[in-house]
């Protein structure tokens, strides 16, 4: 199975858990509203309308159902909330057990019926809770499955830049320009006509360096490169510069491939790419466009650190930076 296919399977399972969690949430909402709005009807159906205590207990159980509902309908963390339902079911079954022991005849028959229904619901809750917990565990291994076993990963992205292809090509061919817009690169040093030495910045895994060579290029049209020697993260890339239909702009098409290793470096790389690896490359190209069209990576008070703005949201407030915050920079 390819990496992407695995990710899709995990995502499908997570979606299913979300959906089922929501369904339980709606059920809780219905039960809660019924118990709060018409407690006497609920008491009669359950056969406990003979006890004054239940006049207090039934609305309280209803209120609890509303809490389950709120959690299941609004939170992404369905596993936690599904378990709260399981706990609630246990409480309900215990109370029902006590109620059955104290009753006979018609009321007892009703209570047994209700207890049967609650047992059924408990089974569904338990299943959902177990699966939600399991899906969470699978999901947390991040985008690049198997940060332990590693594997290949390919990313593609494209943008249109309002500069002619020879200009965009020339900017990219000066490889030391790449770190100005590619977030994971610290520095590229040219070591020969076609060879260079690359180093990655902290979020990509500290001290990751490698040599690279250009393996194919057509001036103004295309550059292809790959890492050489014993790179920690073997990688390769191709960028094509295609004239856009407007006659002035360039379509930039990038394909990057990484061979993610196991171990600590693989883990750091996987963490860097996060759950949406394509987003990183999209953002890199957005910054390339900003640099080529406007001269710089654009900064706002909420996102003042250019390419080092790793986390998109929540940001710092859209409010000017103090001197000390500015001096500390992106790491503050």
């Amino acid at each position, binding site marked *: 199975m390819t990496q992407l296919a695995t990710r899709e399977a995990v995502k499908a399972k997570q979606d299913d858990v979300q959906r089922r969690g929501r369904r339980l949430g709606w059920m809780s909402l219905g039960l809660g509203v019924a118990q709060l709005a018409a407690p006497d009807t609920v008491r009669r159906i359950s056969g406990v309308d003979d006890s004054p205590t239940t006049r207090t207990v039934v609305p309280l159980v209803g209120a609890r159902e509303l809490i389950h509902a709120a959690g299941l309908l609004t939170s992404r963390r369905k596993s936690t909330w599904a378990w709260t339902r399981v706990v609630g079911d246990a409480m309900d079954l215990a109370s029902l057990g006590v109620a059955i022991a104290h009753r006979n005849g018609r009321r007892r028959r009703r209570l047994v019926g209700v207890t049967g229904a609650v047992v059924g619901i408990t089974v569904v809750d338990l299943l959902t809770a177990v699966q939600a917990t399991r899906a969470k565990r699978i999901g947390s291994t991040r985008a690049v499955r198997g940060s332990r076993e590693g594997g290949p990963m390919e990313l593609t992205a494209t943008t*249109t830049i*309002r500069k002619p292809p020879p200009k965009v090509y020339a900017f990219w061919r000066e490889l030391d320009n790449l770190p100005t817009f590619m977030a994971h690169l610290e520095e590229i040093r040219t070591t020969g006509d076609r060879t260079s030495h690359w180093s990655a910045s902290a979020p990509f895994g500290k001290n990751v360096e490698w040599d690279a060579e250009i393996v194919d290029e057509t001036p103004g049209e295309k550059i292809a490169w790959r890492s050489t020697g014993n790179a920690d993260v073997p990688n390769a890339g191709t960028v094509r510069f295609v004239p856009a239909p*407007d006659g002035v*702009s360039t379509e930039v098409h990038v394909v990057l491939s990484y061979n993610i290793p196991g171990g600590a470096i693989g883990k750091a790389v996987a963490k860097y790419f996060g759950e949406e690896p394509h*987003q990183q490359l*999209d*953002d890199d190209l*957005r910054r390339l*466009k*900003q640099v080529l*069209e*406007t*001269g*710089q*990576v*654009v*900064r*706002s*008070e*909420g*996102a*003042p650190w250019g390419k080092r*703005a790793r986390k*998109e*949201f*929540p*940001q710092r*407030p*859209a*409010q*000017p*930076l*103090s*001197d000390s*915050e*500015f001096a500390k920079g992106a790491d503050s």
Partner: protein
Amino acid sequence: MRANTWAGRNKVKVRDVPDPRILNERDAIVRITSTAICGSDLHLVDGYVPTMQDGDVMGHEFMGEVIEVGGGVDPDRLRVGDRVVVPFPIACGACGACAAELYSCCENSNPNAGIAEKMFGHPVAGIFGYSHLTGGFAGGQAQYARVPFADVGPLKIESDLTDEQVLFLSDILPTGYMGAEMCDIQPTDVVAVWGAGPVGQFAMDSARALGAAKVIAIDKEPYRLQMAERAGHTPVNFEEVDVRSRLLELTGGRGPDKCIDAVGMESSHGSAHVHAYDRIKQAVRSETERPHALRQAILSCRSGGIVSVIGVYGGFLDKFPAGAWMNRALTLRTGQCHVQRYMKPLLQRIERGEIDPTRVITHTLPLDQAERGFEIFKNKQDNCEKVVLKP
């Protein structure tokens, strides 16, 4: 410096914040002399536009004096000492959208383009003081502001017009004007405008300036309708009459040729149960808009007419009358205003006396009273139409 900030839903607070500094080489710092509260600020304060954060400096309508410029600002375009009005969309002037004069869709000015793209399909321009979705830029309800791409947007005011005469070139006058311009107005046209707030008033004035035969103002606040009536427009109070019947009456049964929605996502409705339906759905976030004005505009417009939308929408709406729109050959046009496109021509109209933007100002308050300004504007107290703040 002092600045008006977002402090949670339904709460703004004037606080001390650091002075702005140059972050990009094409930035300028402006000492603000006049700023204003916009109807769209209310959507932010009410919590209907996502991605606001505690401490965000608000405000996107401001003007003042340039006190510092970055090293990349072309001195032929802008210098220290220039008096400028700042357009609310931040635009680079160099991308494909800017080249097409679609400044509010600038492809480079939003550092949070990734978030905006998820929400809207494609990113939108950065906007001052208008959530992190539009960049997280500190706004202009403050003593000073940083203005990115200062050599592109700000309009120099070299004549002796007052702040009040030119301040609204930053947003509401061009927005109202664009609403009318999108209507492609003909001399035979009856134009109906939903919303007699400041933008609606300017849409009405613009429709007349562009040659409309008759302009109708629809609102429920008598003082706002009176303001429109004093300017020569025909008032319709939707709390007193059935809008559709009244519009048919006023147009010989044809319906208005062109309709402008200057209300947006928080409209109210004459019919209590329809209002309740949308209000509840909006409160539980199962739709983000209360689009009565838009629905009514589409249903009222004559067949083949144009519905122009300048009221702000942020997400998704229900019960869109697609059948009326499609079967009656209506054209729907919209957009956040491409302010930079309209500033110069509208400045000339102001200089020639064709449009008087000062007519909507009802309150002028010191910046420190911004909280009160929001209060009376939101609750339409004291016949409030437009609040100007003085830092």
